[in-house]
């Protein structure tokens, strides 16, 4: 899980970069950059969950 999350994060970054190159108009460019950040956030959440300390009976 932790590695999957960390692999997803660069994908979000490249989505943002692709938006700069592919969309000259401001609105779709901003939307795709925002989507890229959302993908990064998703990857970060997965990585954080993968690194959480086991608690209680899971330990």
């Amino acid at each position, binding site marked *: 899980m*932790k590695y999957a999350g*960390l*692999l997803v*994060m*660069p*994908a*979000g*970054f490249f989505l*943002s*970069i692709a938006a*700069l*190159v592919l969309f000259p108009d*401001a609105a779709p*460019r*901003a939307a795709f*950059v*925002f989507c*890229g*950040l959302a993908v*990064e956030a998703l*990857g*970060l959440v997965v990585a*954080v969950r993968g*690194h*959480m*300390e086991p*608690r*209680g009976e899971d*330990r």
Partner: protein
Amino acid sequence: MTTSPVAAVPGMTDAALVLCLVLLLVSPLSVAGVALINAGLGRSRSAAQALLGNLAIIAVSAIVFAVAGASLTGFAGGTGLAFHVAGKPWNWVGGSPLLLGGLAGTPLQSQLGLLFAFVALSLVTLIPWGSGADRLRLHAGAAIAAVMALLVFPLLAHWVWGGGWLGQLGVNFSLGAGFLDPAGAGTIHLMGGLSALTVIWVAGPRRGKFPKEGFATAMPGHNAAYILFGCMVTLVGWLAFNLAGAMLWVHASLAALPVTAINTLLLASGSLCATYTVTRIRFGKPDASLCANGWLTGLVASSACAAVVTPGVALTVGVIAGICTPLLVEFLELAVTIDDPSGAIAVHAGGGLLGLLTAGLFAPQPGQLVAQMVGIGAIVGLMLPLLYVLFRALDRFVPFRVEPDGERIGMDLHELGGGAYPEFVIHRDESYR
């Protein structure tokens, strides 16, 4: 891939250059303040190791950066390596000589930019050291600093300050003035906070922090006087660093500097008052270390936005930072089980993000918010995985974590053979029952 000249920056007057030099000579007080805060937030039995570690990290990172890192950073007006996509240059790494070769022949403004990078590097490498307190070896701290000074920080500093692709987003893609980060909210603090998170993931929590049953064990800092005096010292350093950054990277005129200084103070003040109120409501009494974290978060946020917002906005953002900081510290510790003794992730990563977004929202140029989001995306999406891979690999050669016995007797005795307070009686830690 081609070698291409990096865009030059507008020149500064002689008076501005002298003032900038003086400010940069005062700015290491911010580093000293952070070092004091880090030491105070750790345990008494690790205080000497924490402070020696701060010095060692500053020394190692400065040497590594001077030998090789600075050549990757480059400077505006120098050369860099670029590739071209869609007809636009993407300058991604500097191409200056090793060992600061040719520095004497470069313009004074470029030399000041390099001095700025040295101070920034000292600050960014101290942040993960504070988060690894009480279990991170001295050797590991120095090795982490070396890796950051050799590769990670120089790359990012080039992108933002050295004429790299993030700084040129405005020229190439009409996104405001490019990624706006005059005093390092992203380059220093967001990056430092993410490196702290990575160090915590690799090193793990302190023994007894998250017991099998019940809540996380409270391990309060050992010296509130260090922490709070450190906050006062950071203010002086931060004022100087913010003003120097505004002069160097957003080309602020002398007339704009007093407002930048006032905004810095208002951000820190608003944040401290908000944290004081939140902790007073939540715990019945204000919490000194969380208030210090709130103060520091305000300063961190000011690194990006103090030069571009009005005093009213600065105060409002400071209050938001102060409300969020104690809640985020609590969330990270209790909900996500991250053992961060210095609160670096909430303070530096959280404050850095807030400052960068504020700069994007309130800067006058159109498209600035998108430029800020691209910059944040580069730091979080690219640098965090890179740091994780580098630190995991480094941990195999220089183990980050000390042996259990070292943690039990304290890092001072284990690593240095003597404590910071030799006349104190070291009491038994209740968390080891």
